[in-house]
């Protein structure tokens, strides 16, 4: 059976009272300053996360011990209106370099006026996360987010 996209994308929208250029710049240049630090995959606590400002750039976290963990790659870099990155984190909550397992996040920045910007985010191709997970055997213990991803992947795979 071929993997048609069956899982609807996630979407989120937020409006900020800043010009579109600044919204894009804060989102990208200052990514590590606003990303919630509890959501990270490295063994060490997260010091910062970095989004390299060009297509093909890396998207990764840096731990307090200097270690690095890849989250994905920049697919589209179109300042100040559009950004697409891959999400290459698997159900074990680890970096997964296989591009066929990559879901995608598109972020669009629209100027509502000179000092207001709407930011729309879409996390799509979530089925690929499942496909990646289907390669794994068994479900291990753990807790929280990793377990949930595993549960999700197992269930979605069983339904395929």
């Amino acid at each position, binding site marked *: 059976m071929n993997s048609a996209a069956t*899982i*609807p994308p*996630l*979407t*989120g*929208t*937020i*409006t*900020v*009272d*800043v010009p579109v250029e*600044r*919204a894009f*710049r*804060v*989102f990208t240049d*200052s990514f590590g*300053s*606003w*990303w*919630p630090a509890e*959501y990270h995959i490295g063994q060490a606590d997260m010091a910062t996360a970095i989004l390299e400002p060009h297509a093909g750039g890396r998207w990764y976290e840096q731990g307090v011990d200097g270690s690095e963990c890849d989250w994905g790659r920049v697919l589209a870099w179109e300042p100040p209106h559009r950004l697409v990155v891959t999400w290459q984190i698997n159900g074990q909550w680890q970096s997964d370099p296989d591009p066929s397992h990559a879901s995608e996040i598109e972020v669009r920045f629209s100027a509502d006026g000179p000092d207001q*910007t709407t*930011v729309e*985010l879409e*996390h799509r191709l*979530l089925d690929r996360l499942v496909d990646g997970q289907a390669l794994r055997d068994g479900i291990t*213990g*753990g*807790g*929280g*987010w990793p*377990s*949930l*991803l595993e*549960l*999700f*992947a*197992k*269930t*979605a795979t069983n339904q395929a």
Partner: protein
Amino acid sequence: MDTNGVAGLGLLGDPSRRAIFELLARRPCTVGELAQALPITRSAVSQHLRVLKDGGLVVSKAEGTRRIYRLNPDGVTALRAYLDRIWAEALTGFAKAAQAAPLDPEPED
């Protein structure tokens, strides 16, 4: 701040509900087990479970005299809700950062 479209925010935006959800991600539990693991009363746990059930994230089954709660095996719902929660938090953090950023003028050259 407008976070319309971020479904799941209401369900997992509450810290107690999130804690219950994460405990159930580890293993199925009764209300009593959840109340023991958390600093809230049984009746508060029951109220949160009702919200999570209504939202489709949690299901329950009677086993003898006990009622066991677990995450909805339709994990798609649960995963989407959880990722939604992360993105909602991330976008809120972004908005705060954007609005706090200094009004640095564009370089004139």
